[in-house]
């Protein structure tokens, strides 16, 4: 069943037209695109802060907006929790009063326990503090907790980590993962950080210039070459799933089975048998036509070249199939030409273990909806 159905046209605050049409299921849906792509506009329309010109928005089967029938529920009746980029904590209320705002001011019944959410977000020691004294990370945790305690049918997050530095961001991501696992609240997560998308989302909606240009499972979307420009050239990559088959503490490496073949990645804090996600960037993958000798790169993955995509830039994007997974590679157009690469060819993908970033790996719980 779809949790959220969006089919709207309207104007963004900056004055460009926005057209969006997608459905989301349970779990986390990423709304991805460059700044100015219209992501926040769509999110605000779902929450009722902006009014679309026409179309329809439904959450959990309830119509929130219908241009034809003249339905336009005000924000406070939509049951959409919203986490703002800048937190927007009420400065004159303590953390405790902020967290419980929905129940004392919004008269939302609270089936979720206050203590449970406080625990989940590690806010127990901060309840009597004032927002002005919190660090950026703590503030966002309070904002997330406040939204969770408003009994939302769906939780909308507008770049909740973008105001934080890298270290704070890494502190908060595990909380978001925990929320995904422990609450059943579906979420729409807006960001232009591809790492956050790879790590958190189950499905991905990609926007560019005010339009949705693709929607589907996160792994599939990352593998699509035609979305390259929208996903960002430098950071483009794919999500690969694997199972940890061995951990070598001496060398600090884990061996991961990615469907018949194994690769080695850095890290020893895995358990054998654990399913993980790896973010493999296209620019970190090279290809060879035969297994090279005396090379430091240990991960050599036998693949079939599915598709080559070139434009007038210096680069060629390759889509490589390895079992039922796809790996992307970016090489120069000249290399592709000199190797005589063509679709259907057998190639070996070379991937440096060090380039699979530790932070992009996420243990998948039972809810990992990707497989």
């Amino acid at each position, binding site marked *: 069943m779809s949790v959220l159905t969006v089919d709207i046209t309207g104007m963004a605050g900056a004055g460009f037209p926005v057209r969006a049409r997608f459905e989301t299921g349970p779990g986390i849906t990423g709304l991805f695109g460059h700044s100015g792509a219209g992501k926040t506009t769509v999110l605000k329309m779902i*929450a*009722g*802060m902006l009014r679309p010109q026409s179309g329809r928005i439904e959450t959990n089967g309830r119509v929130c907006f219908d241009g034809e029938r003249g339905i336009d529920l*005000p*924000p*406070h009746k*939509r*049951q*959409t*929790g*919203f986490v*703002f980029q*800048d937190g*927007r904590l*009420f*400065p*004159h209320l303590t953390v405790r009063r902020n967290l419980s*705002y*929905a129940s004392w*001011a*919004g*008269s*939302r019944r609270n089936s979720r326990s206050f203590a449970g959410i406080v625990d989940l977000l590690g806010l127990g020691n901060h309840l009597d*503090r*004032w927002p*002005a*004294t919190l660090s950026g990370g703590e503030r966002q945790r309070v904002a997330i907790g*406040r*939204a969770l305690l*408003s*009994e939302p049918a769906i939780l909308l997050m507008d770049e909740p980590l973008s105001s934080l530095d890298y270290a704070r961001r890494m502190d908060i991501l595990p909380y978001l993962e925990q929320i995904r696992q422990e609450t059943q609240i579906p979420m729409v997560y807006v960001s232009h950080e591809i790492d956050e998308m790879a790590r958190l989302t189950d499905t991905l909606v990609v926007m560019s210039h005010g339009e949705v240009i693709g929607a589907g499972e996160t792994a599939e979307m990352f593998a699509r070459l035609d979305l390259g420009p929208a996903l960002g050239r430098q950071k483009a990559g794919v999500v690969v799933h694997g199972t940890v088959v061995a951990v070598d503490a001496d060398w600090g490496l884990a061996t991961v089975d990615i469907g018949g073949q194994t690769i080695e990645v850095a890290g020893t804090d895995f358990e054998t048998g654990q399913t993980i996600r790896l973010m493999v960037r296209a620019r970190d993958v090279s290809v060879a036509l035969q297994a090279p000798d005396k090379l430091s790169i240990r991960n050599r993955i036998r693949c079939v070249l599915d598709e080559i995509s070139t434009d007038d830039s210096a680069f060629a994007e390759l889509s490589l199939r390895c079992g039922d997974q796809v790996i992307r590679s970016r090489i120069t157009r000249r290399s592709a030409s000199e190797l005589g690469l063509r679709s259907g060819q057998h190639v070996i993908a070379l991937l440096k273990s060090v380039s699979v970033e530790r932070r992009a790996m996420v243990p998948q719980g039972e809810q990992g909806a990707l497989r």
Partner: protein
Amino acid sequence: MSEAALAIIVLSAKVALAATLFSLPFAFIVAWVLARSEFRGKSLLQAAVTLPLVVPPVVTGYVLLILFGAKGPVGRFLFEWFGLTFAFRWTGAALAAGVMAFPLLVRPLRLSIEAVDRGLEEAAATLGASRMISFLTITLPLAMPGVLAGTLLGFAKALGEFGATITFVSNIPGETQTLSLAVYSLLQSPSGDAEALRLILASVAIALAAVVISEWLARKIKPEPRR
């Protein structure tokens, strides 16, 4: 202090308090409209609100006399429907003081309403708060320092009002003779200096007390961040 002086102080406080409390809701509405909405003629409203501040008080008093006097259009209407009379009564003094204090009330109110981040109201709405609830729980508390400052300023102005009052309701001991008018009268007579000084000291004390009380209230309402 003489009984007469005490009576003057009590009357002045009554007039100023009535003037402030009665203008406050109107001032808040006008401040809200000026802070939150855009419409044609907004600058006209802005100018009209500022008028009592820039027009000679005698003129304001005269306009009030014409409008609110026993034969004035508004005055007659209010008498016939509500039994209210203003001419040569303490209510008239309060009206004059309220009108003169109005611009001083509106300005800090408007500034403090403008200073409230509307994003916080948006956040309150996503948490289920209706407009009224979000006004009462977010906007009003955050604007409270400005409300207090405005109220105090208005009260001080109402307490010292002279020109419009004397023009509109004259200088009648026991009815419309407030502190300023009494001091003025006393200074006109050769033996009034000592009594005038007492009244002057009293008015300074009242003004000081008002400032101290409002500071204290502001501290109570707006908690300092602490760890």
